[in-house]
């Protein structure tokens, strides 16, 4: 089956796509203009000044410094312009808007696992509503993968042991291809999937149609009990461990005088390798949960901890600004 119709330009289906395409088209323009210019000059000179007699020699030209400066500075200006424009787009692409909904992605050889904030899970397929910013927080269970959605012009490596993020706002309902772009082993080329962009109502329907799902923070809360985290992390004053309410986003004072910001990576590390960053004023008694929790579990726990409020939007009755520790223990 040989297709004779084939696309020359990829579909644009996110807010970012237009921006990326504009820089690209500019770069392409520069490339075409300069390639043609050089090619034309070479051909013209090679014909015009072709050797006519055996003993002919070229006319030694003197190289004026101005010329050298011009053809260094002009490209330089074009290049810096391209850089600045590209960097703007890139920063836009790297900073999810504050109101983005957070989805979780776990990559593994050779499949993609997605989880909606409401808890619904999908494999190799992701339903999203059109027009709403969506942030993907991603990690991998084995090797490095990369989430690539050409129609959205986004790509981000998914790295074991840490979280990376990317985001998009889809602009057109439809079904778009999803690829793994970082080589990851035998079935790298089969580690693909679909992004299904739906109108918000359709999406809601689909979500509630998906039965038996519960919010991630709820499963997280259950895990928190089931894994006995709550035996230490309690609100009372003789708890052996810091109470986690209002933790997310705050600067945490660590043993040894350093501080760390309580972001996802910090929480993950605190759960899997508790001894590597010990909170000041506590004993390093927390057991490691490495190997006992799946990446999925960790994500759920993190969502739960985040749902306990974060710095800046702390639940009533506690102030984040002063940094006074919950339960009176210094942080």
């Amino acid at each position, binding site marked *: 089956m040989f297709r004779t119709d084939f696309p020359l330009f990829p579909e644009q289906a996110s807010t970012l796509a237009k921006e990326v395409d504009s820089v690209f088209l500019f770069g392409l323009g520069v490339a075409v203009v300069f390639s043609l210019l050089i090619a034309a000059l070479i051909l013209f000179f090679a014909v015009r000044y072709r050797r006519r007699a055996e003993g002919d020699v070229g006319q030694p030209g003197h190289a004026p410094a101005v010329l050298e400066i011009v053809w260094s500075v002009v490209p330089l200006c074009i290049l810096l312009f391209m850089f600045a424009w590209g960097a703007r787009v890139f920063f836009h692409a790297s*900073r999810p808007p504050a109101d983005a909904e957070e989805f979780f992605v776990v990559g593994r050889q050779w499949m993609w696992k997605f989880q909606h904030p409401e808890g619904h899970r999908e494999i190799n397929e992701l339903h999203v509503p059109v027009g709403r910013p969506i942030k993907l927080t991603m990690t991998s269970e084995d090797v490095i993968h990369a989430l690539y959605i050409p129609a959205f012009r986004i790509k981000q490596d998914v790295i074991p042991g840490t979280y990376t993020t990317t985001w998009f706002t889809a602009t057109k309902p439809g079904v778009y291809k999803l690829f793994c772009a970082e080589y990851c082993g035998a079935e790298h080329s089969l580690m693909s999937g679909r992004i299904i962009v739906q109108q918000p109502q359709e999406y809601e329907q689909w979500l509630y149609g998906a039965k038996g799902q519960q919010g991630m923070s709820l499963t997280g809360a259950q895990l928190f009990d089931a894994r006995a985290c709550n035996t230490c992390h309690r609100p009372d004053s003789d708890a052996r461990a810091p109470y986690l309410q209002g933790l997310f986003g705050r600067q945490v004072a660590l043993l040894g005088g350093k501080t760390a910001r309580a972001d996802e*990576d910090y929480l993950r590390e605190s759960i899997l390798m508790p001894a590597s960053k010990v909170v000041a004023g506590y004993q390093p008694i927390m057991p490691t949960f490495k190997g006992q929790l799946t990446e999925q579990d960790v994500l759920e726990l993190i969502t739960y901890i985040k749902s306990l409020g974060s710095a800046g939007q702390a639940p009533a009755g506690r102030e984040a600004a002063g940094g006074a520790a919950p339960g009176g223990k210094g942080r």
Partner: protein
Amino acid sequence: MAAHVIPPRVYLTVFTILLVLTAITVWVAFHDFGPLNVVIALAIAGIKSTLVILFFMHVRYSTRVVKITAASGFIFLVILIAFTLADVFTRGKLVVGK
């Protein structure tokens, strides 16, 4: 012949300084200077190796290209470390929603 012959006296002087510096660096290690500990330790290592390079390795009396070669190894090493750490220190620092 890298023509210049350095008299043994110089070697002995350098040797003494190196021993003293070794003693200092060990001494410093047992005292708390906060973050300065690392700085002092590396500074002393830097001075010691400079002495070895200049005198034992005759760079002080060598041609300019040898001087440049000796320096370039360290310079490129610094580039490697500086740029890599520039990434490591700023990773994940992009503030959400700004």
